[in-house]
């Protein structure tokens, strides 16, 4: 096993699946880069470098640079998926969903149901999420709560490199449309990642840390914030169980409910939205199906109901931090 960053793990996954199946293709803006103009091809290899080198191995017929035209990209991916390819389309920042959402939520997501089960749409949309890079209101959102609410879509958000590889391989092999959310701040996050190919099934939460006083459910980068908080709390004698559902749709309800049964207390840490977000979703789930286990209120730690601000002190205050999680836990235990 070698240490790999999430960026490398994703590149691994893409390369291995493209070798395995000629129908796997990649399309998006600057997934190679350098078409037209005077320079070299693969100048970018993806705006964040994830698809670097793939055009060299698989050629421009399978690693396809497109104009800036997200509806056409997402629609082309959906149409190609429905007719025999397994496209991986890149939506550079999830914030751009507003110019192409129809092709995702009304078309790709609904094909199978609308058409009475007679079609499959095995496409993956890779996109980036998350605040913390000072990229302000239109380049820092998470938005996966919106996708999670759409029947027909699957939503995946790895928090580490091992999961990133296994979940992306699973996503590519999956026969339904999958949105794969990559947190921009985690690309350089590294851990042991096998060189060989492996898939991690959807709907199986990862219990990142076991504990018995309180359950924290967290998503994507917030898993690391939760772990940090858990460490602080451990030093105070509070034992925290941290759960990373890894996929929000399907969601591993069981693992969450079992944990709350054990701890009786739940904090959800989520960056997506203060209203109708993933934190509310998990809280609602437990308030219905796990109510009898609850010893106290369910605390949601989310950003405030504001756009993402640009200025560093504001953005730092916007994102849930270990300190706000710890404070939330204290509030709960009081």
């Amino acid at each position, binding site marked *: 096993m070698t240490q790999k960053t999430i960026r490398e793990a994703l590149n691994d996954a893409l390369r291995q699946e493209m070798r395995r199946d000629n129908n796997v293709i990649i399309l998006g803006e600057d997934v190679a880069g350098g078409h037209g103009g005077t320079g070299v091809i693969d100048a970018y290899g993806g705006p964040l470098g994830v698809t670097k080198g793939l055009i060299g191995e698989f050629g421009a017929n399978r690693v396809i640079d497109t104009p800036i035209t997200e509806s056409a990209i997402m*629609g082309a991916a959906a149409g190609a998926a429905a007719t025999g390819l397994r496209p991986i389309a890149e939506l550079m920042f999830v914030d751009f969903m507003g110019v192409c959402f129809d092709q995702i939520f009304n078309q790709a997501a609904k094909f199978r149901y609308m058409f009475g089960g007679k079609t499959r749409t095995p496409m993956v949309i890779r996109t980036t999420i998350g605040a913390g890079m000072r990229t302000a209101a239109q380049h820092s959102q998470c938005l996966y709560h919106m996708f999670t609410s759409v029947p027909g879509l699957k939503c995946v958000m790895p928090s580490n490199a091992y999961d990133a590889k296994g979940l992306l391989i699973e996503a590519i092999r999956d026969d339904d449309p999958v949105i794969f959310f990559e947190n921009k701040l985690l690309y350089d996050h590294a851990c042991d990642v096998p060189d060989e190919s492996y898939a991690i099934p959807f709907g199986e939460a990862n219990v990142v840390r076991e504990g018995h006083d309180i359950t924290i459910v967290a998503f994507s980068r917030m898993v690391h914030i939760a772990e940090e908080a858990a460490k602080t709390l451990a030093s105070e004698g509070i034992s925290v169980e941290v759960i990373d559902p890894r996929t929000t749709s399907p969601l591993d309800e069981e693992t969450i409910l079992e944990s709350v049964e054990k701890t009786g207390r739940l904090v959800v840490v989520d960056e997506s939205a203060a209203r109708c977000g993933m934190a509310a979703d998990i809280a609602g789930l437990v308030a219905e199906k796990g109510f009898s286990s609850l010893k106290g209120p369910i605390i949601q730690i989310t950003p405030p109901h504001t756009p993402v601000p640009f200025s560093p002190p504001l953005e730092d205050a916007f994102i849930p931090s270990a300190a706000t999680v710890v404070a939330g836990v204290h509030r709960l235990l009081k």
Partner: protein
Amino acid sequence: MGSDKNKLLDAYRRMKSIREFEERIHVENTTGEIPGFVHLYAGQEAIATAVCKHLKDSDYIGSTHRGHGHSIAKGCDINGMMAEIYGKKNGLCAGKGGSMHIADFEKGMLGANAIVGGNPPLVIGAALTAKVQGTDGVAVSFSGDGASNQGTTFESMNMAVVLQLPVVFIFENNGYGEGTGCDYAVGAESIAQRAEGFGLPAVQVDGTDFFAVEAAAKEAINRARTGQGPSAIEAVAMRFYGHFEGDPQAYRSAEELTQLRETGDCLKIFRDKVEAGKHVTKADLDQIDQEVKSVIDSAVKAAREADFPTKDDLLTDVYVSY
């Protein structure tokens, strides 16, 4: 010669099937048994028929909310379509889609689409599959004049040119998008001319003339099939009915409405042309009229009698696996 005759009779049968299908739904819709919105294709039959004539089952088309004609032209099963429109379990989409979502991937019918401008991005995807897999497949997008103004449509044309995809964009200009005239809503000189600006060959043809559409479609589809990239065709033909069934159509003058069937009936025009030729007689065509009528009769009868899906079907087929 015999093959010429057969081709003409086939074309007529397709067009007539569409007409009869739509005329009959127009009538049956008043019984209240047909759920939801229906948008009829009557008047535009020559377009779908002449285009799809050049397509194989393995070629794809993407359609609109006004999709019955495209579906029949592409070879979808008429009984399955009718049952779908009635919301029955044996419908082409198991009753889950209805008129606005008829699809049949076996026949290369990628789906009617209730989003205006919804299909062009999907259709370039089907063309991309053909290109990547190296087949000689072609994909055709049908859009209305109204849909020609939608951003998704423009994006798809540009992407098709950039990637040199085997795709044809058919713009059916029937004069109106809902209650708004094409002369108002399309700022350009013509839809074809605007499309040409995107860098793809584009022509405008008379959509009531089967042979004019056939010739233009042949050229465009051949271009796509032989790797020479995308094209666009604007075909002009008015719809006979309202935007949807029940539309009082105050946006059309009484004069326009009465003249429609006299001067703009593609079936009449086709008949006049072929009856004047030597292959086909009036009797041949009359016989097809009879046959088609009975096909539609029995489709309606079967659809009315078929079973609805049951509550258990509500939760199935959201995902392949979940």
